[in-house]
């Protein structure tokens, strides 16, 4: 119904991208002690001073009032199943530990979905080598005769877990779309770098795009830009960090290719790095060096940029 350029034939598979980020998360006092006590097979809750509300598992803030003043308590490992469902993660139930004022979700184990009824008595099943995770409790199993337990003061609480290692893995399949599609197809098959003219026809936008950022009007015809260009800005990278793609030192550069108006980000190599500051600066002329081997249809097909002599063509 709208003019969206997806009728352009693109036979490129989406561009895969993975983000795999390491974290060290801080659970805080209540959850930190809860996790620490998992190893002792004790379930910890919070009793809030404002009204005596009990939350299991332990919380820093009362779910009802937001109260932050609380005493830690030891909760029983028995409770009632208040609701449940079955997903690809298994049977997930909402469990009300005896003496708690709130439900919490956990796995239901040793039972089939059809065996369960709301109101069933359940008790915790502890895992082997419980560790410092809620999964130290494998889940809760039906236990029709489980006696009703009660909340007790927590004696000699363990030292709180301060940091929980975590990793978030996210996978993407990014669509090329017609403009990036042609750009990277040309890079892959012809080693050509293609932009599109701005809406007023002066110079090329790189990467190409349907609309001119400034005027928000349709961009013009495709145009090949040169593989030489001028450094607009650069820095010498010494920093090391998680997720880095190459070992330092190297040069981060934003390059305006001849014929283009916008930046291409890449590395400049092939120089004496001890003299990087003087050899590469804004205005330095550079040329793309293509990578040998099977082309990938990405910026990685350009191995790096090398310094060449001469002046900025535009100056």
């Amino acid at each position, binding site marked *: *119904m*709208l*003019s*969206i*350029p*997806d009728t352009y034939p*693109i036979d490129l598979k*989406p561009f895969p991208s993975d*983000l795999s980020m390491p974290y060290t*998360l801080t*659970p805080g006092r209540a*959850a930190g002690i*809860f*996790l620490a006590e998992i190893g002792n097979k004790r379930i910890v809750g919070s009793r809030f001073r404002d009204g005596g509300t009990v*939350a299991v*598992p332990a919380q820093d803030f009362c*779910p*009802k009032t937001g109260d932050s003043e609380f005493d830690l308590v030891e909760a029983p490992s028995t409770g009632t199943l*208040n*609701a*449940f*469902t*079955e*997903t*690809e*993660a*298994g049977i*997930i139930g*909402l469990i009300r530990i005896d003496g708690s004022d*709130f*439900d*919490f*979700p*956990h*796995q239901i184990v040793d039972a089939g*979905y059809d065996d369960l009824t*709301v109101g069933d008595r359940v008790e915790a099943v502890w895992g082997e080598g419980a560790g410092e*995770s*809620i*999964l130290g409790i494998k*889940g809760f199993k039906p236990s029709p005769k489980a006696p009703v337990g009660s909340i007790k003061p927590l004696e000699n609480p363990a030292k709180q877990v301060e940091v*929980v290692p975590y990793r*978030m893995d*996210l*996978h*993407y*399949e*990014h*669509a*090329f*779309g017609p*403009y*990036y599609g042609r750009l990277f197809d040309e890079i892959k098959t012809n080693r050509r770098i293609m932009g599109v003219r701005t809406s007023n026809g002066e110079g090329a936008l790189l990467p190409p*795009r*349907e*609309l*001119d*950022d*400034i005027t*928000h009007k349709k961009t013009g015809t495709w145009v090949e830009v040169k593989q030489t260009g001028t450094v607009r800005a650069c820095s010498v990278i010494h920093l090391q960090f998680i997720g880095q793609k190459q070992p330092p030192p190297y040069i981060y550069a934003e390059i305006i290719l001849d014929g283009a108006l916008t930046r291409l980000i890449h590395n400049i190599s092939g120089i004496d790095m001890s003299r990087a500051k003087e050899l590469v600066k804004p205005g330095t002329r550079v040329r793309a060096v293509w990578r040998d081997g099977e082309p990938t249809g990405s910026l990685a097909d350009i191995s790096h940029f090398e310094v060449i002599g001469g002046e900025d063509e535009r100056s």
Partner: protein
Amino acid sequence: MPANRVAVISSTQTELRGNWSGAQHIDLIAAVVTDVFKGTGLTLDDVDFVFDSGSDVLDGRSISNCGFLGAMGAHHKEESRIEEDGLWAALYGVTKIASGAANVGLIIAYSKPSESDPNAFYKSQVEPFYQRPVGFDHRAASGIQAQRYLADHGVSEKQLAGLVSNRWASASAGRRVPLDAVPDEREVLASPSVARPLTQLMMSRPTDGAVAILIASEDIARRTAKTPVWITGMGMSGDRHSFATRKAGTLEACEAAATSAFKQAGWSKPTPAVAETSASSAVTELMVLEAIGLARPGKGLDLTGDGKIAVNKSGGSLPADPIMATGLVRLAEASRQLVYPAEYGLKSPTTAIAHGAGGVGMQTHCVFTLEV
């Protein structure tokens, strides 16, 4: 709200497709931003600010608005990213115009869940120490909401399936959600189980798409719009994070948001002619209608016939849920139904509500009242 009235003067959206595989985010965004000015006599130069909604986690980039500013037409304008459904971005925009600080605002929301995993999007919202490790997510929350709703109100899975089938049929009758086929009750029931008792087709279907609306101050609206759609009330509310500690069997935050909106609008009874609502599942579709007050608790299904209130004529969010844009699509749809009622087989409705939601188990809600 103060004296400065604010109206929706134009809205547009892309088709909501399971996969816009040939287009990038910026292509979808650019298309709606170009189209939304048609017929208004306004251009991007008249726009005072751009507020946008999208998700870094869905987009696979941090501060993702940063890379899309050109496509959004935001260059050298005031811009903000509201990382919540686009209806919240619209709410922000309305406050800005209502305060007198601006005249024309462009509100954009977009989504391409086909490029990532919507389950990861929801799972990563859940608190990481207690809930995330045990596999509690939006599916589990939806399943539990369904178990309770069916038990509390004597509604059957077959009835839910019928609701889904109706909603898909409505979407199919419009032009904005291309569907190969409309599932019947049997197919809905037979689709894979996702969160018992809910099947895949009872959950909202993630779709790609973008939506843009223009909002304007009263004098601009009167000069530019065929029929200005006045935003007369707005409410938003967030429930507790932990689903298990929320009040069972109801959507309290939805009620709170609706109550605020109706109070602002001076509506004593929630009797709009048109309602466009969001839902994560067939069950929350009903729970939302009830929380807003359009039906008594457990009686949401009564609204699905040809009653006095036209509910989700667009099909709503079950057949097409462009996560982060769903609520703003509801505002666009409700506005269109007020301006072009004939297109929807409506007589001459003068009032509508638009509803958006966010979070696992529909934690947050936003409600607009609209009048022409």
